[in-house]
């Protein structure tokens, strides 16, 4: 039974990420010249109690993401099952 899902939400590639840019500048000023770009996102861990199948749950999680966790105009997301 799936107990935990991880949903990662990131700004779409073509959208400017000022936070990511600020973090990049920070890393570079610390001397980490290997970093050429940073994109900052959000991670949600959802604890689940449900008899539903994996594919049914994935569908539910997709709906949750579309309805609340991510704004599809500006963000992409990835759903992973843990445990």
């Amino acid at each position, binding site marked *: 039974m799936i107990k935990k899902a991880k949903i990662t939400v990131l700004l779409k590639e073509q959208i*400017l990420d000022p936070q990511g840019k600020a973090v990049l500048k920070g890393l570079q000023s610390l001397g980490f010249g290997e970093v050429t770009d940073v994109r900052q996102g959000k991670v949600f861990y959802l604890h689940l109690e449900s008899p539903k199948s994996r594919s049914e749950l994935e569908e539910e999680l997709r709906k949750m993401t579309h309805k609340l966790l991510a704004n599809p105009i500006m963000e992409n997301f990835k759903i992973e099952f843990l445990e």
Partner: protein
Amino acid sequence: MKTVAVIVFPGSNCDEDALSALAGLGFSPKRVWHDDKKLSGIDAVILPGGFSYGDYLRCGAIARLSPIMDAVEEFARSGGKVLGICNGFQILAERGLLPGALLRNRDLHFICKTVGVRVENTRTPFTSQCKKGQILHLPIAHMEGNYTLDLERLEELEAKQQVIFRYTSDKGQMSEDANPNGSLHHIAGVSNETHNVVGLMPHPERVIDKLLGGEDGKWIFDSLKAA
């Protein structure tokens, strides 16, 4: 006398300014709590500025799910006049009643200053008394005012005259410098396709009295009065 509802969400903080601006300009203002389910006897709705739900998740993302928003949506979809100011604009965009989204400001600063705002379309209930191209001086106070929309839909928006306000310099010129937050096409406010729902990031309710630094906000309220 027109009755205008001002919706108050947990975290709204510009509701009092909106209510007192309305009262002072000859409207009958009505404070409506976000938990209420009905709107009745209302001529227009204002979603005020502030930090509804602390801007948690995304600005306006949780407020758009408040019980009152079903009534606001029904009112909007049946042609009712709705004005979203700052956080109110963010809530309307999250709800899908206005196109696009408001991202974090390009320079990552919370910007609090008076800006030039050009009226692009006078065929809305909130700009009918203005002249096309008129420059208003309105204050902005936001961290997430960077308007975005995918380029295809943005072209459609322009073609359908849904861009209502654009940022300009003090003297009315558009430029990257005059754009405080990086908004695409310098957009400061938009409307829906039928032009009855308008959202803008600047605060007209803060400049309705010379004593407070300006009166340009009156143009928007006078338009509503005449609507």
